[in-house]
């Protein structure tokens, strides 16, 4: 009884605090995620004011946060969008994977963390944050821009790639033998492919079991199905996140639209708890040790993201300013970085991944949206004009020489 009372007090105070922090962040045009995570660091083990009674609740809440984040991600994309993007932007997606995953993997190997940690770190640095980036694009009024579909399609492909990456990682981190590991991976990838195929082909049938007009039953039904599938997926090492994502993709039409509206507030609540919880479980005392490596990693992989975006936009025929906008917008990492780090740490791969990923994500999430604004400055526009003029002069001189 006493414990539950304390749970109410702690969680209540925490949420109230988060709300105030969030307001502050939004006022300064920042994502509130860094503040949520910092709050977690302050109240966590080794922090200034460790929480006692509410860790169980927060732990479950964080798990639910992952499930909700992913099911919402799936709901936002229609199967046709996924297939369409896969066809049109596969090349950009592959470049994105290579340019951004390899630095993370190399980093882990250089630090001597071994191949499994390298696989995890590849994921940590690979995936940009759809949530943060979508918000930045909206805030900066860039949704109508011609390069925006390129940014979004990179995000879609990354999220889709996670549906295969996470099961592989979960199979590898439990440290099965090579053969056993290969079988687990094959099962995981196979089941994801089958579910994805069924979701794209027959998603409408699944949506039909729900009644889209009754908010209460729809909320419980969709949340129930998502948690059930997420749990089952986790049981067969496909990872709960992927299960939830697939449910989101499979639901379509009015059901998906209404479910999105109903789940959004729940997602906001539990996603905040998820970020707090990651902060809670990360010991702030470990951060100074990993700060500089994280900073270096952030600088390198933010640059590779810019390069990814620049090249993808160039291929799509976007002009020079738009290429920079694409690259700079893609820099922030977010939820997947934390999910992957959490997965690796809970399997005991390398404890330092948690503080490193936390610091790394904080750096990219705080600096990314600020840097993305560079392209709106007068200075940047001046540079672009100068570059265009140089190129024009160059083209002009070469044509005069050619004949």
């Amino acid at each position, binding site marked *: 009884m006493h414990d539950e009372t304390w749970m109410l007090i702690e969680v209540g105070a925490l949420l109230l605090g988060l709300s105030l922090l969030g307001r502050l962040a939004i006022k300064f045009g920042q994502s509130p995620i860094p503040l949520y995570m910092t709050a977690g660091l302050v109240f966590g083990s080794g922090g200034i004011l460790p929480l006692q009674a509410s860790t169980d609740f927060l732990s479950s809440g964080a798990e639910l946060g992952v499930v909700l984040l992913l099911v919402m991600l799936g709901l936002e994309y229609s199967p046709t969008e996924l297939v369409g*993007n896969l066809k049109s932007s596969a090349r950009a997606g592959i470049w994105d994977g290579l340019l951004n995953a390899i630095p993370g993997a190399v980093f882990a190997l250089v630090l001597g963390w071994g191949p499994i940690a390298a696989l995890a770190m590849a994921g940590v640095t690979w995936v940009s944050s759809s949530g943060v980036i979508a918000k930045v694009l909206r805030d900066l*009024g860039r949704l*109508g821009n011609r390069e925006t579909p390129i940014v*979004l399609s990179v*995000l879609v492909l990354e999220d889709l790639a996670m549906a295969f990456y996470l099961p592989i990682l979960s199979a590898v981190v439990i440290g099965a033998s090579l053969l056993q590991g290969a079988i687990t991976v094959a099962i995981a990838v196979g089941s994801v492919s089958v579910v994805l195929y069924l979701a794209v082909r027959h998603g409408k049938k699944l949506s039909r079991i729900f009644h889209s007009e009754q908010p209460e039953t729809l909320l419980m039904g969709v949340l129930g199905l998502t948690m059930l599938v997420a749990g089952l997926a986790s049981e067969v090492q496909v990872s709960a996140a992927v299960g939830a994502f697939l449910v989101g993709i499979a639901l379509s039409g009015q059901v998906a639209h209404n479910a999105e509206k109903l789940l959004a507030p729940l997602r906001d609540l539990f996603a905040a708890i998820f970020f707090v919880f990651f902060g809670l479980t990360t010991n702030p005392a470990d951060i100074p040790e990993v700060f500089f490596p994280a900073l270096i990693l952030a600088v390198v992989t933010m640059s590779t993201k810019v390069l990814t975006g620049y090249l993808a936009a160039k291929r799509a025929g976007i002009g020079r300013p738009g290429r920079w906008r694409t690259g700079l917008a893609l820099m922030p990492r977010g939820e997947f970085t934390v999910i992957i780090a959490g997965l690796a740490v809970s399997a005991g791969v390398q404890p330092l991944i948690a503080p490193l990923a936390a610091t790394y994500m904080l750096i990219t999430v705080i600096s990314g949206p600020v840097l993305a604004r560079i392209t709106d400055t007068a200075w940047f526009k001046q540079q672009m004009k100068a570059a265009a003029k140089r190129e024009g002069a160059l083209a002009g001189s070469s044509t005069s020489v050619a004949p």
Partner: protein
Amino acid sequence: MGVRIEKIDLPGFGVRHDVVTQAGQHIGVLSFRDGHREVALYDPEDPDAILGSVALTGDEAAALSDLLGHAALLSQLSGLGSGTIGLFTEQLVLPADSRFLDRPLGDTQARTKTGTSIVAILRGKDVIPSPTPAEILRLDDLIVAVGTREGLDKLDKLLAHSQV
């Protein structure tokens, strides 16, 4: 004449339709999942970036499209021609001495006598789509009619009948 419209997915947000005008200008029409729309214009110096956009609610978008639609309907009708199906559209001016001036459209018996259909009347800035027989014809009305070549010629003569 076809209009170039491109559809581009904005995963997670909705779709953008890109309309390229004959003069080479681009108009972006963003349709968001929540039903609101935005109409955007592009920066001539940086054609990938929008210069600004106008947010429209569903109702406003519908009203705007109605407004543009009337004009578009008429230009589409006049484009019906090309003779492939033997139907033409013509805009006829009601002559100042026509005997149908200030009389209801029904009096012309245009459909019976010429086999043509009067699909709209343009009066100044107003458009009267599908006018009823009771519609009174006014000076300077522009009558939009669809019919065969012969029918339209007959209609032209019919309307030109001066007051007896």
